[in-house]
Every structure is written in C-alpha cells, then in structure tokens.
C-alpha cells in the first residue's frame, strides 16, 4: 500500500524545503505521497515547478493564511 510522508518545512526558507523534499522523495516508492508543509511563498512556487518537471503529480492546498501543503505523488 502506498504510504504518506509528512515533511514539516514551516519556518524554513529557500532552498531548504526543495532540498528536503528532494531527499525525502528519493527514499520513497512509486505512488507514495509526500506532503510538504511550508509557509515560504517562494517554495510554494519553485517546489511544485521542480516536482512537475520531474514528472510527479502535484497539488497545492492553501491551508491557512500564508501556509500551504504541497502534495506530491511520486510517479517514477
């Protein structure tokens, strides 16, 4: 069964969320889901861009004022 990993990047600025997400995704299997919690608006732009370029499925949810969850499903 696919598992879900939650990555707490609240209070972290670029490029830390991207590097952490990259490392976490490496350890995961296909169809696993990574949820990156972040409150840095640049990461909200560059993280999904990178993940989509890598071919993963990405969804962004604004969970609170200035707080997002970037949901990445590993595709390959």
């Amino acid at each position, binding site marked *: 069964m696919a598992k879900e990993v939650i990555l707490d990047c*609240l*209070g*972290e600025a670029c*490029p*830390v969320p991207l*590097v*952490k997400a990259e490392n976490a995704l490496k350890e995961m299997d296909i169809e696993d889901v990574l949820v990156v919690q972040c*409150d840095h*608006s640049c990461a*909200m*732009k560059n993280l999904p861009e990178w993940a989509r370029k890598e071919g993963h499925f990405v969804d962004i949810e604004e969970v*609170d*004022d*200035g*707080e997002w969850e970037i949901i990445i499903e590993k595709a390959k």
Partner: protein
Amino acid sequence: MEFLKKLRDNVFFKKWFKTPYTYVTGAILLSIFQIITFGITGNPWGVSGVLANWGAWLFEAVGGSVDKWYYFSSEGAQRTLEAGFMNHAGTMRNIGIIFGALFASLMASQFKIKKIKSKKQIVAAVLGGLLMGYGARIAGGCNIGALFSGISSLSFSGWVFAFFMFFGAVAGSKLLVKYFM
C-alpha cells in the same frame, strides 16, 4: 462582508493580488521601475548602499561620527549624510519596498509571523546577513546595485559580478546543506 467576498472571487483581484506573478512579468515590471527611478533620482537603483547610510545616521544619532571613515569620506557621501534621512531618495525607496511587501502579503491574505525553528537558524541568519552586508560594501554594490543596475547600464562590471556571484551561490548552498540543515 458580502463586498469582500465578491472582491476575493474577482478575476482581476486574483490575478493582481493573489496569485504570484510569473518571472517574465516580474522582470518587465522591474525594468520599467528601474528606468523610472533612474530618470527621477539620477542614480541607478540600489538597495544595500542605502542601508550603510542608515547605519551611519543611527551611529550619529547616538553621538558617533563617521567623518573620518574612508567609506563616507567623499564629498558626495558627506553631502548625502548632511541632507538627512528624510531627503534621501534611496531611503524612501527602501521604506517603500518594506511597506509594499507588507501590503502585498496582506492583500493576498498571506501575512504570517513565522516561528524560529532552531538556534541554527538564528546563527545562519546573522552570519549570512553580516557576510552579505560586508561583501556588498567591499564589492561596491549588492545584487541590485552591482548586478542588476550594472548590467542594465551596459557596464562590464555587472557581468563580472554575475560570474563570481554564481560561484559564491554554489559555495553558499553547499555550506547551507552541510551545516545548517
């Protein structure tokens, strides 16, 4: 409340205030505004040099004097310091940047006071700030004054700055990943 709800769903409000601009839109806006600032103030856009003046005014306010400092020894620098905080175009622009950023994050409902996660983050921020501030002064500008304004003035120095900044960024990223993550 009904009005605010309508405003939030308005297509132009979403476009201008809520969703981030593309890099191309940002680049075009920056280009237009740097031309305007050059035309009005007679100087290319800079950010960090202004902060050095703020430091000097702060130091003078508590009784210090920077008359003998090499950095402020030119006649132009002395004249700027004498004219004061309120008559300095760059100061007004930097204050505008701070309040503009606040305004933008409030309009997008993205204002948030962030938690400090660890002591490491404080060390990294303080060290990074000191190094960037010192580096910008001995380089004669930051990534705005030396890089952006340098290149847009067709000056070769801007490209030299870009070349070395690239290697600085590589080294900085390696240090960040190794010691601060």
